[in-house]
């Protein structure tokens, strides 16, 4: 009699654990693809590409020009959001520097003010010199740069992520 109760109890215990275990497995099975969608941006490798932004002679030495290009592998449903801009500076000696338009403070788009020879941010008043170093305001570090190369007489910029300033960024180079 006692044995019967015992076996009944262990049977019920087993069934309870079975039901919880199987439910757990079913929940995990459903969750994995959902987590995949949630974490997709971290799972896929973003492509990097060299994009042509103009012929070298299109840019005058000593000027800063806004160039725009498409991010690599834009999705068909991205529309205009696939665009990125960069401030391309041609030095007097003919070298190129491509600055990110994003202020290093909080990412707002900086403007090149030619007569003042400064980059200025409309959001919180960050100001940078023509070489991208901080002139005044809250930016914790200089403007980011994209890699540039000259390829068959054309200026090419290496696409990259939106520069994200980290906690320990410093104005000192």
């Amino acid at each position, binding site marked *: 009699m006692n044995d019967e109760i015992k076996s009944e109890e262990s049977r019920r215990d087993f069934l309870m654990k079975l039901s919880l275990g199987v439910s757990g497995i079913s929940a995990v099975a459903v969750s994995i693809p959902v987590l995949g969608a949630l974490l997709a941006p971290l799972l896929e490798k973003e492509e990097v590409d060299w994009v042509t932004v103009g012929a070298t002679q299109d840019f005058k030495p000593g000027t800063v020009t806004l160039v725009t290009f498409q991010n690599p592998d*834009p999705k068909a*449903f991205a529309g205009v959001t696939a665009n*990125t*801009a960069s401030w391309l500076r041609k030095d007097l000696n003919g070298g190129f520097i491509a600055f990110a338009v994003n202020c290093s403070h909080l990412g*707002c788009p900086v*403007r090149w003010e030619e007569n003042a020879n400064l980059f200025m941010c409309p959001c919180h008043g960050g100001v940078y010199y023509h070489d991208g170093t901080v*002139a005044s305001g809250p930016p914790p570090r200089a403007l980011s740069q994209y890699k540039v190369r000259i390829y068959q007489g054309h200026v090419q910029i290496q696409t990259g992520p*939106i520069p994200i*300033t980290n906690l320990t960024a410093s104005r000192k180079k």
Partner: protein
Amino acid sequence: MSQLKKIGLWLDDRLGYTENVLPLIRHLAPPRAKWTYVFGSATLFCLIVQVVTGIGLSLLYQPSSSLAFQSLNFITNQAAFGKVLRGIHFYGASGMVLMVGIHMIRVYIFAAYKYPREMSWVSGVILLFLTIAMGFTGQLLRWDSNGVWSSVVAAEQMGRMPFIGKYVARLLLGGDTIGGHTLSRFYSYHVFVFPAMIFGFVGLHLYLVFRNGISEPPRAGRQVDPKTYRAWYKNMLKEKGVPFWPDAAWRDTLFGAIVVLAIVAMAILIGPPALNTPPDPAYIHTVPAPDWYMIPFFSLFALMPPAIESWVIFLAPPLIVILMLILPFVSNKGERSPVKRPWAVFGVICVAIFMTCLLVIGYKAPWSPVFDAKPIPVTAIHGNQQDPVIQKGTHLFYIRGCEYCHQINGYGGFKGPNLTYIGNRLDIPLIKIRIVNGGPDMPSFGGTLSKDDIDALAVFLSAQK
């Protein structure tokens, strides 16, 4: 018995209205819980408005990075009542933020978070932050250039988290850059994820009202003692309680309805915020700014000392959440009356003044360069207006960008000192030093301006007195 009554009784028996629902509606509320108690339900009214108008908008809106802007234009300019619909959703959000804020202040000042309502406070804090998250993501769904840059700003803030910041930022944007995935992700958060959480926590928040009862208006000297409170409260209700509906709830209903009508009136009379330029991240001549309830934080980012800012961005939000969540556990008994808790009242007033100042200054944004400053007319300058050097200096002051930050006689920006009377403070050599070397918060112009230009500027500025 009439047939109709029979059907009614059948439904009541099967659905359990009289047995289970009616007692909730008519549960006893403490007397004198009057007009100060209407803000929680007004928040709920706003939430309902947001759900209903949100559904309306989702019928017309295209949640895609490439098409959302066009569909917003369609909603605003073509769809029947579309403009009013957008307006109600916008002012509904403002109303909800406002009501949730007042509700929380009321609960704090009356110390209604004390025993046994700690979990009401905890769920309320979570709801407050969910409301803010809804406001922010909703503002992004207004996918013009402002929406695009707001998402970049959000990603930058996430980027300040140590180690994982870069990945959180990437997760938020749906990739390395703004792109096809950005908007649909914010849409999913705004329309499914956060609302689902809000429904859950609103359910808990309301359930707790029934579980622990509406807090009685505090009276100075009446202490909350966890050992005796429940019995005392039950007894007080038995003696003096009034049925929630209609004795107490008519005020909630009336006030909520007035709030909703005010929202609709503003939607019709003022209309939704105008759409900015298209969401092209390569279009940079835009001035991103959040909606009003985010402006105080926006101001704070401009005014904080840069050296501590990154740490504040990363540490302050979790710290504030933790402090708010532990409040009812460090202070869950004793006095509830604001008369006996002057520091609590003082704290609320300080925070309110602080936030209001940040809001007001945020609209003025004196830290931003004034890109559209007008040239100073010669008639507005001091000194010899015919002097060609002074005239040259005036012109340089404008075209070299000094006016973005400095003001002379009402022309120019606010970021730097007003220079209308600079000649009284600095002579020509000191002015030159300042222009060439710059200052702690001023660029140096030594490498940009010619000697002649600097001379002319210094002569012009020294004449301003």
